[in-house]
């Protein structure tokens, strides 16, 4: 469906968050919601990023620190597992990397143009504890 331009809505028109009705929003995960074009969920801020996080699940302990402290609802956790990053909404702040407690970290920042597969293939190894 073609998007209506910001200056094409009828004056006084009601803009809704969802297409159709959701009775229990808190009980409906994002992929089951029909967001309208007027929810910022339908927009993207990916062009804000200079750096991006990459997630390596090998060492992840599903602590969910990244989920709770991500300001941009960009850590996708389902059934208590961290499963990936929402790259449309991630602004590349790097908080998730800072709070990730594993050794090596399960999230690291890379330049926006970095190749995910290549970076995952040479993920750093466990670091010896500095004393």
């Amino acid at each position, binding site marked *: 469906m073609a998007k209506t331009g910001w200056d094409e809505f009828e004056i006084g028109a009601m803009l809704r968050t969802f297409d159709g009705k959701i009775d229990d929003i808190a009980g409906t995960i994002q992929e089951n919601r029909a967001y309208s074009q007027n929810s910022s969920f339908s927009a993207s801020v990916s062009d804000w990023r200079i750096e991006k996080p990459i997630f390596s699940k090998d060492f992840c302990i599903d602590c969910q620190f990244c989920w709770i402290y991500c300001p941009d609802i960009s850590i996708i956790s389902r059934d208590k597992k961290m499963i990936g990053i929402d790259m449309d909404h991630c*602004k590349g702040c790097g908080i998730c990397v800072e709070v990730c407690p594993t050794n090596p970290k399960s999230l690291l920042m890379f330049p926006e143009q970095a190749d995910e597969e290549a970076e995952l293939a040479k993920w750093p190894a466990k670091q010896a504890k500095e004393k």
Partner: protein
Amino acid sequence: MSEIKKIKNLKEFSTSADRFEGANLLCPGCAHSIIVREVLNATNDDLILSASTGCLEVCTAVYPYTSWDASWIHIGFENGSTAVAGAESMYKALKTKGRLKQPDRNPKFVSFAGDGASYDIGFQWISGCMERGHNMMHVVLDNEVYANTGGQRSSSTPIGSSTTTAPAGRVSYGEQKNKKDMVAIMAAHGIPYSAQVAPNKWKDMVKKIQHGMEVEGPVFINAISPCTTEWKFDPKDTMHITDLATDSLVFPLYEIIDGHELNITYRPKDIVPVEEYMAAQGRFKHLFKDEYKYLIKEWQERVDAKWAYLNRREEARV
């Protein structure tokens, strides 16, 4: 609906379906949204929300977008609290008259506002809401500055902070006045619950928000919200700065019940010197010059004195 959401641990919390959306225009690393997410995710009940003018409002309601999956209203800078109070009064009236279509739903009424909108410009409105006893919660996103308009000082700005209207320079070390104790002022209204929260201590936050939502009557919450832009630190360090704030006791976490009974809810194992908190932020950089170092010492003394006071209050149960 309407029973308290069970959140035993972070894994369980992470099954929440957020009602606050990304691609809002808050800065990368902004703590406002971390706080909002923790508050909204503390309940599964319907939400009736407002935001006063400020970063949160401006960045989450950019025509033709909304970042809110809940009823949300914005009117002006000063009156987000009264907007929610009005909705709450209407809800009560319709309930009494038996005119609610779904009377078993139990919506929560929450207004969000910055420190400028709460400590200064919306002060009288919030005071009215607290005094009239509305069943609502007012949450301050306290970044200690008017961030949205470029960093002017508010009555929440702490001594020595450099702001655009109280800049540090040749003749001044920046803000000269001490931060206003808003929690004490709100508690003095005799409201059932007021508290300070911080987003790093999410469990403490959730407990307080859930208590505040259950309690009958007005609730005041002051949340520290480190601002990467105005406090001048790297966006990745938002949680680190919050840790320094709570662990240096610059921002102690406590609650006040019925206007008098004070409980400290977080006691850091290792108390961090205030100097460390200040050194991590550009807004205090100038205080590390020899001529201003006495101010850092005075800060530490103020923080120690406040902590001793809170402890005495807790012990005395008055």
